[in-house]
């Protein structure tokens, strides 16, 4: 199949007031995505997820579009720029520009959003705990380069009156939320990574899965909604409790997964693979470790293995693709390679390196996240593995991402594999914990609806599924065959 060229789909504008059906499909380059509301049709008129609730005209739906798997694709962002000439609320200065002090009508001011789908996330430095107490960081942070200028801005930067670190991240998926808010396997009072006491739900006092945001800075749907409203939506004042509850209820019943594949056909046939399709995602159990041959991460089963050749050419092509998807699943589940130098994976009892498979890290049943508190340094944002522009006289492209130098204090436990001096595009979890060992650790994203929401990784560094697979191939010297690579991409496109 060709590279995942974008297919532009339904854009949901804040406050448009139309009904979100109980089940709807949206086209993408690989087929169609299914959005299922298990609570039935959603009346969006007056609904706080769909109405502007802040000062910049955005609603939650602005960056969590049904057609984009409840995230937002860079293709959709580019389309909005064209259609609205940059006036859509997603381009708001607060985080839709590389820095609020840039000229708003210049696409260069929005380059990270327009080219990589990244919004600015601004974090206080040093970090502050939930209870308002400051965190004493184990490291110092310097700006090595910042093409967007925000980290060196006298108003918004590290040396401003309110020292702030700006990093740039993809919006997370607001769907299938039971899987990252579960109380099952791996959720307990203490997190081995860190180690820290697990963040607790202030309402229930129970430990949380800490798997929601890229840096796990908040871990309940309510806390996330409040945080997003206050920052990304620029909401002033307190959140109305009833509206907050309505947002959380919506997020608890909306599911997203690829529903059909343009070559493999329906992913939701009654006798099809039990791990595919949005209804199966809605019906399966949360909080289950799937890195085993009893629960499976993505149960695909045997039904798409050894299919008949097919009488008609279209049927033959369909069956070949289904077999490829099934083989791709087996690559994901059983193809071993040396997983090496991953802070919070190799350091948590597995040894370095460990001969394992994709499903070792991506072990949560039905989503492929880590089952709980899933932050790791896979190398997505830390050098030497993060994607950087080759600098030479023949390359006109310039670095897009900021680059920070982290210097860990001698008294602190170092990053296990990068030591005490680390160069990173995004310190990730360390901007919350202040820990040297957390630099570059990012909470893994779920695999559902990948076909609808490119680019991938927290910093948007993989434009396509092939880029995503190639990153891992390069990172871990896997040496996929072309067949393995193709099968794995097809499998990912069907999730």
């Amino acid at each position, binding site marked *: 199949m060709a590279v995942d060229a974008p297919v532009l789909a339904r854009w949901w504008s804040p406050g448009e007031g139309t009904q979100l059906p109980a089940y709807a499909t949206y086209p993408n380059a690989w087929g169609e995505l299914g959005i299922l509301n298990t609570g039935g049709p959603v009346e969006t008129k007056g609904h706080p997820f769909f109405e502007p609730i802040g000062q910049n005209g955005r609603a939650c739906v602005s960056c969590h579009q049904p057609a984009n798997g409840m995230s937002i694709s860079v293709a959709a962002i580019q389309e909005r720029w064209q259609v609205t000439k940059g006036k859509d609320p997603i381009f708001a200065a607060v985080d839709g520009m590389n820095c609020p002090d840039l000229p708003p009508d210049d696409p260069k001011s929005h380059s990270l959003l327009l080219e990589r789908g990244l919004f600015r996330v601004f974090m206080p430095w040093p970090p502050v705990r939930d209870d308002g107490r400051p965190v004493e960081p184990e490291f110092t942070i310097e700006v090595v380069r910042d093409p967007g200028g925000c980290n060196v801005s006298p108003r918004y930067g590290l040396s401003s009156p309110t020292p702030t670190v700006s990093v740039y991240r993809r919006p997370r998926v607001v769907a299938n939320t039971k899987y990252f808010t579960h109380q099952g396997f791996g959720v*307990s009072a*203490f997190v081995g990574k860190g180690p820290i006491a697990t963040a607790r739900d202030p309402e229930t006092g129970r430990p949380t899965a800490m798997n929601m945001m890229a840096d796990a800075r908040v871990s309940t749907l309510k806390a996330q909604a409040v945080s997003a409203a206050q920052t990304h939506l620029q909401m002033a004042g307190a959140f109305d409790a009833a509206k907050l509850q309505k947002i959380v209820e919506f997020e608890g019943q909306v599911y997203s997964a690829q529903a059909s594949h343009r070559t493999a056909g329906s992913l939701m046939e009654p006798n099809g693979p039990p791990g595919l399709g949005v209804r199966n995602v809605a019906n399966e159990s949360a909080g289950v470790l799937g890195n*085993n041959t009893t629960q499976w991460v993505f149960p695909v089963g045997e039904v798409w293995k050894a299919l008949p050749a097919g009488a008609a050419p279209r049927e033959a092509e369909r069956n070949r693709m289904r077999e490829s998807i099934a083989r791709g699943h087996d690559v994901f589940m059983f193809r071993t390679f040396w997983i090496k130098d991953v802070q919070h994976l190799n350091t948590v009892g597995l*040894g370095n*390196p460990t001969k*394992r498979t994709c499903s070792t890290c991506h072990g949560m049943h039905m989503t492929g996240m880590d089952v709980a508190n899933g932050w790791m340094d896979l190398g997505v944002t830390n050098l030497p593995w993060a994607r950087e522009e080759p600098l030479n006289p023949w390359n006109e492209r310039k670095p897009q991402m900021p680059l920070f130098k982290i210097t860990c204090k001698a*008294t602190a436990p170092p990053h*296990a594999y990068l030591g005490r001096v680390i160069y990173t595009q995004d310190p990730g979890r360390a901007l919350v914990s202040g820990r040297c060992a957390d630099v570059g650790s990012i909470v893994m994203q779920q695999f559902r609806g990948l076909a609808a929401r490119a680019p991938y990784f927290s910093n948007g560094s993989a434009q396509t599924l092939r880029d995503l697979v190639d990153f891992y191939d390069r990172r871990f010297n896997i040496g996929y065959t072309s067949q393995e690579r193709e099968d794995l991409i097809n499998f990912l496109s069907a999730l």
Partner: protein
Amino acid sequence: MNIRMRRPAVAVVALLATVSTSAAPELHRNFVTCPIVRDTSTVPCWLAEYKGELYFLTLQTDVSAPVNPPQLGHQVLVEGVVSNEPRICGGIVLKPVALSVLPELDNSCSTVLPAEDRYNLTFEPPRPPGPSKGRLAFAADPAAPRPVVAAEAGPRTFAIQFDFDTSILFRHAGQLQQIQEFALKSKATRIEITAYRAASLLSDDTLFTEREDIGKRRAEHVASLLKDAGLTGPTYDVRWQDAPRPDGVNDARLRRAEVTVR
């Protein structure tokens, strides 16, 4: 909350780095070296060389393993006993063995040996290199009778063992939870924490000593984690001191904290 922190006036033993002293008992092997990975047709073995001999440390299994593999990129402190088991992956089996990954990077520790038929395992490993068959390698059998729950009335003392020069690590989460649950159930009013800094007597007579402040770090770390987990009611008595002189036999056990919940 009342927290008292104090350092004892008299250390049990003055611990000095690289002090030559008496030899370790004959079957004990205590040494610091780079670990070695040897691939096999199933899971890799972890090995280490000492004085021209190759020792088997452990196999790759999963997070439930009682002995976790060491790490390339780091030296490892090996504290083990030569067993009479057949060699595994070409190495003399150290059992029991304690492995401490030393925190600082050492990029010279990078040896990965390829699989060779003569070193393939002669038994099925506790866990294959890919997904498990349904439960963690060393998890309790779900059909086994549940362990008897200890009396919920205090006081009760918990021992936490540490790796060399480190404080709380990933594998302590379960122990900390036990302490937390006991404290909650017993309505604890006081938690006493005493953590130790220790040394290991290496087989070449070197006294390998932990960093000066590690006892304090351990004690304070345990206390802060328990408080962060919601145990803010009890009074905390947090102490640290140096452990007794190591004898080359039970040195790993000296690196510990004792937490008494009253």
